[in-house]
């Protein structure tokens, strides 16, 4: 019987040969795409609808397929940057207009004007406001995002609470005084503590921050001047808006700081009026919450609410030949975005889709969806498209603005002190470009 003997030398030589074989494997050459990689952070009920949109694309095409990968929203930018730095960025992904100035400056997101023209995307069919929001004036004013949906913050109202308070659900107040009257009528307290908020609020995070953002804009405060040179224009209005938010907790006692999860709390009936976005609709409808959506009232001198634009952006590729195929896919998704903008999330930025005869009847009932579409008329408080843009975002629970405002809500700083800090930081941000 022969005995197999493996010497150290032969073992090492074999291992080296194996390693060399692995390393010498021919590099994968990426040709024109058969598969387009798409990253998305949509993970709730809107994610299910988006998956259907992607499935519809794949069913309609045999030559090109989209492979969708989910990435947590908070880590999305970092992962895209890391992937781009290694030359392996996804072909396209979900973006929010106005918050990617740095990526536009660094060339991570690709300008789309020429590509849109090349594939025949009808830019004229888009609401001009949506196209303007997708550009970065400081960085060549290129189009960096194909708008997919327009979202605004509007008040959802628990109709059981409205009826219980003897109010008419069809006569939601249009001004600040009426809003407070409604809130007081629906608030419940026990031993001086609010147990059901007339106006759903939290003591920290997104809700008080975005409320301040909307109310301050209504009162005439501007986070940045139109030319992006001066920060915090009309700070007195900003301070007045902070006092308005504080009064909800401490003077009018229509809100409590003790809510940890605002979405769950409104769904459980812990709050009566909750300004939020269209991404909440599917969940609340599914749980049969009795509610109606209304237009945000005019609290200050002008009616304004928060605006957010979701869309698709293309990322830098080594193989430039991939752009056109990707843009063709994005065009198809935009042209066929009726499902997305009726069942999925916000209002359509496409005039041709908005004018479809069944646009109002498709998807959730108009009583809950309508305000999010009609309210886009005054939803203008969006992002500040500069490098420090994320510091200016009013829909944030952890950025510089939110953290600074939290010191006011917690009684640790006076509104004037917070405004001074905000002005200083924002001005530095604008000066940086």
């Amino acid at each position, binding site marked *: 019987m022969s005995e197999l003997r493996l010497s*150290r030398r032969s073992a*090492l030589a074999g291992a080296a040969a194996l390693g060399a074989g692995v390393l010498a494997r021919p590099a994968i050459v990426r040709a024109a795409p058969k598969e387009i990689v798409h990253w998305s952070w949509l993970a709730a009920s809107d994610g299910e609808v988006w998956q259907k949109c992607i499935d519809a694309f794949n069913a309609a095409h045999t030559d090109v397929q989209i492979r969708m990968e989910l990435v947590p929203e*908070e*880590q999305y*930018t*970092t992962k895209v*940057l*890391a992937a*781009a*730095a290694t030359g392996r960025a996804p072909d396209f992904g979900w973006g929010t207009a106005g918050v990617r100035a*740095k*990526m536009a400056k*660094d060339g*991570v997101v690709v300008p789309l004007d020429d590509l849109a023209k090349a594939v025949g995307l009808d830019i004229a069919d888009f609401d001009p406001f949506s196209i303007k929001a997708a550009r970065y004036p400081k960085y060549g004013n290129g189009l960096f995002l194909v708008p997919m949906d327009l979202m605004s913050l509007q008040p959802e109202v628990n109709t059981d609470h409205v009826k219980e308070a003897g109010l008419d659900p069809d006569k939601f107040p249009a001004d600040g005084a009426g809003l407070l009257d409604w809130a007081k009528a629906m608030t419940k307290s026990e031993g001086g*503590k609010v*147990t059901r908020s007339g106006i759903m609020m*939290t*003591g*920290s*995070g997104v809700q008080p921050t975005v409320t301040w953002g909307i109310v301050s804009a209504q009162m005439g405060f501007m986070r940045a001047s139109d030319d992006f040179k001066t920060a915090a224009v009309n700070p007195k209005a900003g301070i007045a808006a902070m006092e308005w938010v504080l009064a909800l907790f401490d003077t009018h006692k229509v809100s*409590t*700081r*003790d*809510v*940890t*999860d605002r979405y769950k709390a409104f769904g459980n009936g*812990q709050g009566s009026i909750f300004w939020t976005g269209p991404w909440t609709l599917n969940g609340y409808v599914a749980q049969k919450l009795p509610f109606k959506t209304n237009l945000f009232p005019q609290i200050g001198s002008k009616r304004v609410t928060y605006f957010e634009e979701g869309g698709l952006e293309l990322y830098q590729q080594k193989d430039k030949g991939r752009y056109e195929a990707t843009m063709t896919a994005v065009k198809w998704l935009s042209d066929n975005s009726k499902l997305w903008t009726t069942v999925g999330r916000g209002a359509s930025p496409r005039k041709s889709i908005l004018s479809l005869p069944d646009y109002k009847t498709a998807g959730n009932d108009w009583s809950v969806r309508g305000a999010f579409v009609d309210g886009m008329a005054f939803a203008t408080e969006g992002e500040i498209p500069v490098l420090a843009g*994320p510091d200016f975002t009013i829909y944030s*629970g*952890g*950025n510089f603005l939110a*953290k600074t405002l*939290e*010191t006011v*809500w*917690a*009684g*640790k700083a006076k509104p004037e002190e917070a405004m001074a800090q905000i002005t200083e930081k924002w001005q530095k941000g604008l000066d940086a470009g």
Partner: protein
Amino acid sequence: MANDEQTAAAETSAVAFVGRSKIDWTGYAFVAAFAVPFLLFNVAPVLFGIYVGFTDWAIIGEPNWIGLDNYREALHDTWFKQAFVNVLLYALLVVPGVVVLGLSFALFVNRSWPLSGLARTILFTPNVVSATVIGLVWVWVLDTQFGLLNHYLGWFGIGPIPWLTSANWSLIGVSIASIWWDLGLGFVLFLAALQDVPKDLYEAASIDGAGFIRQQFAITLPHIRPTISMVVTLQIISTMRIFSQVYVMTNGGPAGSSASVIFTIYQSAIVRNMLGYASACSVLLFLAVLAVTLLQRLVLREVAHA
């Protein structure tokens, strides 16, 4: 003469050995299986992180050397300084909590009193559950209006306490959840140490008239002192790196009152893409953990000598 020849031959042999470079590479190959990944995935990133701390790197583009700017910014950053104070407060609450409760429960289980077997399982269970799950469960337990804890405290006329929604209470709320989560490891280590204490010492002490309490101070504590030192060290390090509970339960708020250093580093690196600044903060945290650990070991050693 013969000895001289043997010595010369041995020297010639040794020279020849070196001259032929007959190095046995087998040992190196075995060590390399661990050393190469360790160097690549542990040491190299740490060194790279230290380097990045001196740059303004934001993933894309080349890192620009900016010297100590990130360190200066960190030392002037109100939120970062608050996070440092917070982790020290966390350590002051969580470390004694884990040591006292862990040791008490270990003593209970070690005495083999009724239900001690069940207690052993129950006490260790939280330690194998992920911090995210712990966080979510405790968000419910500590809810101001509908939380279990406030419900029971209400029986005694206490509360409701805003455990997670008040800047004055959030750090305590997160600490309670952390103690519950970390207790298991301390408990198991203490239990193992207690089982190593010779039983005849207790018998002798008992014959001499020492009661239970006296026995613990005279026999148990001196014997398990190295374990106490180890648990305190591990717990200090763990607490100074607290993240998941903070992220899930309070997101650092309200007003940064529960933010930890790692949470601040995560925000800087992952949310704001300030890799250089985040690396500088990480180095500062490392130095702080090192200093506290050395100080703590020094103090415990002095106490032991005394």
